[in-house]
């Protein structure tokens, strides 16, 4: 398995290289000049040219890309054009809020989606099954910013149970940390829980129609044991796959949620960097996100061997 893991990680390198090249090319083609933005309205063309030269923006694109790639290989993502801070430091500052948000969103989604899906699969056509269908339809169709505003209006502005915005690190107390994250995490998990619920239901329903389940029933094994020990375990592979893919997709959805709840995470950093054309930050963040995506997928692949002993790499 170790060799498989190494192989998978090595194949990720060219993928990330292509991602880096595509992002760099897109940025190169996108109109907008950071030197213009930071020089301000009163700068002369000479001053803007001087700033552009000082930032190395007047160099040829291939040279800039090659230089950036060489630094990346050495673990240096460059410095922000605007703040002058190392990109790795800026990303590091934003990781804790984003990880916290994603972690809680995954926990809530799995906590709601899997039991809901299993319960609906156990009684197809029942009111529970209909409830799942309604919930998933709502979860799919409700945009995160609408759900976020609605939840904030109800629980923060009206009932004043939870804060409207902001992030408190876990080091300042788990209760405070959780209080600030509940609303954004619930907002983020709505779609995700809906997907997990649907996939779990479908997968468990499939397994429940297998011969060995019928045999288990014929042997008089309790329905609860059949459902949880035999059916759910065998239905877990597609569920874990969707959890993994969903977790990676959540990184993208976090951009909106972080904006609505003013969470200083990687999503907000990305949006700010794009609006300012802060090229090193955009490139660094995208590279990091693509690495995260690849790693999550590798982790999902590896988890199959633990969930289903028949799978071997």
């Amino acid at each position: 398995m170790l060799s498989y893991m190494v192989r998978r990680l090595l194949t990720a390198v060219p993928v990330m290289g292509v991602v880096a090249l595509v992002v760099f090319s897109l940025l190169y083609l996108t109109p907008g000049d950071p030197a213009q933005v930071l020089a301000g309205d009163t700068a002369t063309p000479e001053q803007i040219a001087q700033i552009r030269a000082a930032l190395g923006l007047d160099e040829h694109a291939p040279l800039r890309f090659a230089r950036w790639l060489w630094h990346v290989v050495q673990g240096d993502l460059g410095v922000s054009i605007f703040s002058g801070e190392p990109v790795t430091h800026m990303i590091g500052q934003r990781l804790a809020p984003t990880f916290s948000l994603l972690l809680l969103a995954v926990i809530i989604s799995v906590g709601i989606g899997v039991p809901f899906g299993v319960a609906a699969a156990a009684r197809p056509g029942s009111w529970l099954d209909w409830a799942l269908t309604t919930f998933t339809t709502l979860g799919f169709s409700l945009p995160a910013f609408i759900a976020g505003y609605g939840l904030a209006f109800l629980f923060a502005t009206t009932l004043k149970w939870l804060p409207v915005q902001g992030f408190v690190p876990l080091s300042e107390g788990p209760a405070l940390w959780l209080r600030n994250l509940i609303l954004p995490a619930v907002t983020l998990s709505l779609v995700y829980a809906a997907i997990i619920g649907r996939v779990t239901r479908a997968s468990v329903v499939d397994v429940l129609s297998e011969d060995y389940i019928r045999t288990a029933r014929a042997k008089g094994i309790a329905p609860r044991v059949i459902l949880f020990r035999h059916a759910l375990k065998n239905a877990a592979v597609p569920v874990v796959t969707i959890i993994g893919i969903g977790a990676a997709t959540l990184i993208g959805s976090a951009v909106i949620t972080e904006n609505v709840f003013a969470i200083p995470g990687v999503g907000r950093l990305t949006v700010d960097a794009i609006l300012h054309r802060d090229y090193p930050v955009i490139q660094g963040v995208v590279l990091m996100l693509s690495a995260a995506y690849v790693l999550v997928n590798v982790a999902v692949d590896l988890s199959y061997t633990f969930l289903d002993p028949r799978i071997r790499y």
Partner: protein
Amino acid sequence: MKRRKFLRGASLAGAALPFLGRPTLAQKNAARTLKIIHNGNLASLDPIWTTAPPTKDYAFLTFDQLLAVDSKYVPHPQMAEGWTFEDDGRTFVLGLREGLKFHDGEPVRSADCIASIQRWGARDGFGQLAMRFVDTFEAIDDRRFRIKLKKSFPLLPAALGKSNSSQCFIMPERMAKVDPMKQVTETIGSGPYRFLKEEFVSGAKAAWAKFDGYIPRKEPVDSIAGGRIPAVDRIEWAFISDPSTAMAALIAGEQDYWDAPTLDLVPVMKADPNIVVSPRNPTGSYYMLQLNHTQPPFNNPKVRQALAMAIDQSQFLKSAVSDPALLKPCYGYYGSDSPYASEEGAEILKTKSIEKAKAALKEAGYAGEKVVILGVMENPTLAAMSQVAEDLMRRMGMNVQLVAMDFATMAQRRTSKEPTDKGGWSMFVTAWTGSDIVNPAVHQMLRAGGPTAWFGWPNDPEMEALRDQWANTATAEAQKKPAIALQVQAFKTLPYIPLGSLVSLVAYRKNLTGVFPCPVAAYWNIGKS
């Protein structure tokens, strides 16, 4: 590895991730902490290197100025004890107050001030004008320095104490010696609040602590002049880009002050008894239609005049705000609080007739050349006004295309002098504060030196001559004549078309004290009851 062990280990690792958060860095006392919602993203910490508004606001808390203008734009001593002009106005001598310190405890010396003036003078427009008059700098001692001028420049105190654009903030000499084209990395200031760099997260959070070594002036506060008293122990900025979230945070009491509330949310906040919504910046925001003078059709002065005849400022202003109390048409090139505020020469702007404009357009020989409007859509006011301009010109019978874009794209495209079919442009709506258009020295948009002028590159030698005449006039009273003559000339050649002004509002919790009228986002003197 066993499956259970792996799953247990993975769970523990996942649970530990949030601990990556930074440790608590300060004990926060809500009653002594002023929490501000700041609209912009504070990225750079060098107010000379960039003119970005958040950086300017950061600088006003962190650094002090030698002089500062009052609400009538009259300069007063700030860090200075006083100043004198000697030798028929060709020598400027400034003395510093006793006991002034930087945030690292070092005393503020003449050498620090000279280096700070030189760095500011290399970048700022008014500073560059002042430097053209400067011959030499000389430190007389640690608390006094002399500036020898090539010829008299009575505007030097106004330049050193100005409130608009880039200000002359005083930094330690080692910081001020940094190349003005490169950012300073230190944040050692001279102002009432000490920047807490270790807590700074660009685009998310910034914090300051009261600087105990700061000595405020005794005079009452008047705009940026007078005593800058640190009235709370700590100031925190939160950067909340979503207006609805910002409003909800203010109403919920999570934040104390919102520096730029979105105007359509104002009625909601006004309905809350705990929120005060009021104008703070007495100068307001002035909107203008910037025209490209190098490309058809606006390279033709008669087409510019025809467009000016069609403009009804109230239509543009109402597109952004419905409350009539917030709209202030302004038929002049200077702000209404400028000493040169006047409507002289503005008859063309009061025409407000599409029919007359159509006739004038026909007479001007307009032949259907395409008008490309650069519409900045991330700003609701600029977006609305761009759409009004598009509609107006369509009704005039012009061939118009509104191109939607973000600010960064517009900032690049407006540099193009190419025709519209090759990536060029014809016009865009922009805004400046009243203090940016208070006099001919700071008023970038009234520069008409062709290639050296602001985007649009108006070319009118007569306007340039009148500005020089204004700068070389000795007394404030005598300066009025060339300043107003400059406006009259501007209405003839129309470097841009004024669209009027909107009152800028702030919103804050009722328990805040000491909020004073100010053209910049100044947070000194503001306390909490």
